[in-house]
């Protein structure tokens, strides 16, 4: 009974991990930009890898192998956000523009109306 429960639990965990892997790699193909694709890679690295490793740990039981698997999981969980953050930082530093409409033009046109609104409200108060 207990073995059956553990088997079902590990299968369920691996299934969640497989779904996360497929969603992440689909996003890696479909998304338009480096900054968007970083989200998909984060999905693969944290959700997919962590759930599959959790499933393998549950399948294995308590031993040295499961300790090593937990070590891999913790290492991936902490280093992959650092790596994707570094990719985003270097891409921004080297001048990669985000894809999208009116992203650059929207910034100055937004500032001007807020100044006018502030002046009007100040006049109204006085």
């Amino acid at each position: 009974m207990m073995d059956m429960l553990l088997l079902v639990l590990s299968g369920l965990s691996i299934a969640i991990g497989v779904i996360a892997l497929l969603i992440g790699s689909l996003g890696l193909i479909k998304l338009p930009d480096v900054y968007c694709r970083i989200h998909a890679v984060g999905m693969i690295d944290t959700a997919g890898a962590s759930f599959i490793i959790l499933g393998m740990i549950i399948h294995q039981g308590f031993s040295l192998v499961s300790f090593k698997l937990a070590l891999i999981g913790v290492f991936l969980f902490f280093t992959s956000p650092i790596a994707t953050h570094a990719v985003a930082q270097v891409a921004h530093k080297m001048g990669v523009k985000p894809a999208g409409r009116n992203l650059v033009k929207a910034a100055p046109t937004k500032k001007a109306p807020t100044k006018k609104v502030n002046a009007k409200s100040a006049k109204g108060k006085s």
Partner: protein
Amino acid sequence: MMMIVAITACAVCLVMALVRTALGPTAFDRVLAVNAIGTLVILGIALHGFIMERPEFVDIALLYAILNFIGTFAVLKIFSTGSLGDQSTRAK
């Protein structure tokens, strides 16, 4: 049984990441895809060890995890500064 499904999904995702590596417009897309390929290879090695009932492969997977992290940072450092920190070969 579930392990075989998982390793097949790893292979499918690896092919999709290879497509992004081939047609990524900038170099950072390729770095990102190679990072994802490294993670998928780690999972594949560990799952292969479980399917073949030889869990010693987990050690190799741990080594690949460390190498993947260091390799990504080395490539990014070459992109951003032009060297790996060696003062004598730094581009002027």
